[in-house]
């Protein structure tokens, strides 16, 4: 019994260009799958499709079973029930993903209140707890801050706290660390890894960087121009990539890794 089952997903633009081409993948409860491919390969569109949030004008066909719901062709009402509940998402850009005019605490309170029916002081306490969970120092201060008053890494923790506040069965992370500095990146990865393991939450982890995916995921699917080119355990893909495209991804990850090792060795 899988928690997410995508079969022959095709995503097209309004003018008929195919952006995702017969993609299939599935995730068991608690499983962590990496979705990897270079920029423009269709990773974000696939993530958005799972929540029925494709950009206006795009169409999809095939099948996306998320929990008990068929997303393809679902009504908006069905989608609203599913979003946050069966799957929640953390986006790439921590600055723009939060409402610039609203205090962080109120933004977290929104999904918390909706999901757990909390109000007043109980809700306030839950917000603080949610911020503590993502290891933000001084949670009360952060709750009162506006997004522009905290750092990029802190914003991304807030976004993660919002997604986790929904207590979803699947967490989709669309390049959650790409916009961050390298050191902040690895802290956030460790945090995300720890939090989803604690909760036995399934993860669809999207990245263009194999080294990052390897930290969180056990299995990866390699995407190229909207098509799956290779799929397998992270270890197998890294050790013995079959496709040329995968080899390049592995090589670039290796080069980066060794560059980092050399620098820190010095």
């Amino acid at each position, binding site marked *: 019994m899988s928690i997410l089952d995508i079969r022959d997903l095709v995503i097209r633009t309004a003018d008929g260009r195919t952006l995702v081409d017969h993609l299939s993948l599935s995730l068991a409860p608690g499983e962590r799958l990496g979705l990897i491919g270079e920029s423009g390969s269709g990773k974000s569109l696939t993530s958005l499709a799972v*929540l029925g*949030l494709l950009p*206006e*004008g795009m169409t999809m066909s095939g099948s996306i079973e998320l929990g008990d719901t068929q997303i393809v062709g679902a009504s*908006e009402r069905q989608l*609203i*029930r599913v*979003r*946050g*509940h069966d799957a*929640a*998402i953390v*986006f790439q*850009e921590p600055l*723009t*993903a*939060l*409402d*610039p*005019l*609203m205090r962080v605490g109120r933004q977290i309170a*929104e*999904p918390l209140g*909706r*999901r757990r029916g909390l109000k007043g002081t109980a809700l306030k306490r839950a917000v603080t707890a949610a911020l503590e969970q993502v290891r933000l120092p001084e949670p009360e201060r952060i709750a009162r801050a*506006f997004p*522009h*008053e905290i750092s990029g890494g802190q914003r991304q923790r807030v*976004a993660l706290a*919002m*997604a986790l*506040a*929904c207590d979803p069965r699947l967490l989709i992370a669309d390049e959650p660390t790409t916009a961050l500095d390298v050191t902040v990146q690895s802290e956030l990865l460790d945090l995300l890894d720890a939090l989803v393991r604690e909760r036995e939450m399934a993860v669809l982890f999207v990245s263009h960087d194999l080294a990052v995916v390897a930290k969180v995921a056990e299995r990866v699917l390699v995407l190229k121009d909207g098509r799956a080119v290779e799929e397998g355990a992270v270890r197998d893909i890294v050790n013995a990539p079959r496709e040329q495209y995968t080899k390049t991804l592995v090589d670039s990850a290796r080069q980066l890794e060794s560059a980092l090792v050399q620098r820190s060795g010095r």
Partner: protein
Amino acid sequence: MARYLLRRFAFLLVSLALASVVLFVLLRMLPGDPANALTSVGASAEQIAAARESIGSDKPLPEQFAHWIGQLVRGDLGTSFISSLPVGPEVSARLNVTLPLTAAAFALAVLIAVPAGFVAAYRRRTWYGALLSGISQLGIAIPVFWLGMILIAVFALNARWLPAGSFPPDGWAQPGEASRSLVLPVVTIALVMSASLIRYVRSATLDVLDSDYLRTARALGSSFGQAMWRHGMRNASVPVISILGIELASTLLGAVVVESVFALPGLGSMLATGIAQHDYPVIQGVLFISTLAVLIIGFAADLIQRIIDPRLRAGLSGGVR
């Protein structure tokens, strides 16, 4: 916030002072002599000199300026050259027409433009969304006086539902009459104003519809309506408020056209008469009050934006996005 208010208030005073100087000097650079309006054609040099002395236009300019400013500080707008009546009470009587006219037109324009601009953005791929955008584009090109005359022709002359113009002589003592005579002018201004407002509301809405924070809210289970209500409206309002301020100020300044089309005794027509008669105190008084109103409107718009947008309070740019 207190420092900002203080700074903004000082800015207002300095702007007002500068505007007074410019106003005063420019007015005296215009050709024509107010003494001519006071005397009959072919008056003798002595008669003209006497007229100048009686209104004080024979004094050196700095002295005249000091006199005017002195009056202003005491809350006195001076005395008309022509009628010898004080300008202040006349201005406030005229404001009783112009302010309700502008305020009602503004409110109606917002009531039209906000929903219409939203639909034009949210439903831009439908025929009615495109139609709304088209009407607004077209509306921007329509001159106020032309629309005013069309409305008069249709609703006053043909259908006889509403008066074609004029205002009851005893003003708001007859509220029914007074309101009825403002209906067509209000509609005229509101339609013209909303045509350009729709465009700005539409583009602010498009920005919001395209925003990541709206997508975040929806991705976590907000309905579109909830997300728009909680996040969209406030964000869209920030750029729209600047435009509202500008529109309101320009309507106030542009009231002269509508007032002359509908023969309303407002501030605009007072200015027009003053200019025709070289009645400096009247012109100065009206323009001073208008300048003050425009500065206050700008102040208010700025203040409201700062209350909504914390980035503006922090002095960051990027507030208008």
